[in-house]
């Protein structure tokens, strides 16, 4: 197979976009984990589920700010949703940026309502009718739809890069799946970090989250290999070598950390902080090297 030819100019998507990809991924991933804890976890997991929904909304808050700040004409952000020429909706399902804008709006609504529900369920509001609704079938359905939207927000950012004519990005169709898996890994790590000192959260929840984190890390590692194979076949893997190998090292360390820290006796007491931190850095590094190396 001859190497792919690329003569496209870089779009200069840089730090704002990196920030959005990072926080958007954590938000979508946290929501999905919150739903898993709620629907298949034990009664003791419910407090962690609430923290996951609250984390999801808080991580989502900077996302529109980053996206709008990256625009050349920030005040025209609304043109992503409404067609300035016809006055109708601007909805192009074949354009990931258009689809993603709508998905982000929809997920924002689900995440916000789940956030309110989680707050209502906590403490003195626990007996509220609203809180009861969120614990029932309606709440479960809401969480499932929110999870679908949240996972879409995690994945479409990778598809957005792939649906281009840039080297590396357009050669790596698995980017959508890779960013989704990486979002789940990062969200599990973030929740582990947030739960570690909370005495009101069941210790078994942390054990279950650690196991989930390791499962997500395995999935992410597999997808990294698939991504590298596709980029290698296209002949553009060299763009991610050189100085970018340092970021690859961070990615690998972050992926290996949850396994290494659970096996090394001496390192175990550092694990609750260091392993999740390394995993979060790994999530950031993966996105940074994909975004920046292709445009260098």
């Amino acid at each position, binding site marked *: 197979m001859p190497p792919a030819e690329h003569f*496209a100019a870089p779009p200069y998507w840089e730090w704002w976009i990196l920030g959005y990809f990072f926080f958007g991924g954590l938000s979508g991933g946290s929501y999905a984990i919150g739903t898993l804890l709620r629907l298949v976890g034990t009664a003791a997991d419910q407090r962690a589920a609430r923290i996951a929904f609250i984390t999801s909304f808080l991580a989502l808050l900077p996302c529109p700010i980053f996206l709008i700040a990256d625009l050349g004409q920030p005040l025209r952000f609304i043109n992503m949703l409404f067609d300035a020429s016809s006055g109708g909706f601007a909805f192009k399902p074949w354009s990931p940026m258009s689809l993603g804008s709508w998905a982000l709006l929809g997920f924002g609504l689900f995440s916000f309502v789940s956030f309110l529900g989680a707050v209502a369920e906590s403490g003195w509001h626990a007996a509220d009718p609203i809180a009861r609704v969120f614990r029932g079938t309606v709440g479960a359905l809401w969480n499932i739809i929110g999870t679908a939207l949240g996972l879409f927000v995690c994945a479409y950012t990778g598809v957005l890069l792939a649906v281009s004519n840039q080297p590396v990005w357009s050669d790596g169709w698995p980017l959508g*799946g890779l960013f989704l898996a990486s979002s789940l890994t990062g969200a599990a790590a973030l929740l582990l970090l947030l739960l570690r000192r909370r005495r009101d959260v069941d210790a078994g929840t942390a054990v279950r989250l650690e196991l989930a984190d390791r499962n997500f890390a395995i999935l992410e590692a597999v997808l990294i290999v698939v991504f590298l194979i596709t980029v290698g076949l296209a002949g553009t893997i060299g763009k991610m070598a050189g100085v970018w190998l340092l970021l690859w090292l961070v990615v690998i360390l972050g992926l290996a950390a949850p396994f290494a820290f659970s096996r090394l006796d001496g390192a175990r007491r550092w694990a609750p902080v260091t392993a999740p931190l390394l995993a979060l850095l790994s999530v950031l590094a993966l996105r940074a090297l994909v975004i920046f190396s292709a445009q260098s």
Partner: protein
Amino acid sequence: MGFFTDTSICIGCKACEVACKEWNQLEGNKPELLLDSFDNTGQLDAQNWRHVEFIEQIPDNNGVVMTPTPIAGGQAWLMMSDVCKHCQNASCLEVCPTNAIVRTEFDSVLIQQDVCNGCRDCISACPYGVIGFNEKTGTAHKCTLCYDRLQNGMQPACAKACPTESIKFGYLDDLQAAADKRLAALQTAGYKKAQLYGRDATVYGGLNAFFLLMDKPEVYKLPNAENAVLPSRNNFAGYAGGFVTAVVGLVAGVLAFRSQRMNEKSDAAR
């Protein structure tokens, strides 16, 4: 309507670049010494909607010729005035989320400056590196095929200024007939590498600005037919990959939470 650019008679005078900048009031970039033949423009971007490429195919110090042409004794100096191709299947138009990029009544591809919000997705998608981002306006810019001139019955400034008629403007049928005739003449004269690029539908459904090249498209930094692919080719695989990963990820999560719950239940039963 469109352009037919015959590179075999381009003399690299850059009159097209000057006329384009003058008519469209483009300030141009800060002058730079590029050390790339006679090229001091570099590439197409927000300030350069025409760019004359200089491709030197002369022997290097060891007398090695990279891509010899048959008639010029192994030496050639290729020149081409590059421009937006106004593709029939345009990558930029495909991805633009705001519908700022439209096809006009002249069949050209136009960025509506009052709608564009500067997201730069079109820059990411254009396979020719045609579109640039203007920091002052905060929007994407490229050749408009002199939309304002066409509306007033005039031809684009670059075609008007070209002294050798290397850039021809007109109806596509007429231009294609002229291109076929010129190609036949060149091939009869021994220029076997001469070829038309974008004249038919093999490249992005056909280009409204097509070229007669004296060598392979890659030499002119143009993707060949095999590599001229739309961004949407990755839509299905990208989303399908994401969907499969989501399912596997959720199953992995369920297994983690359920397995521990089962362990706890069995412990409690004991």
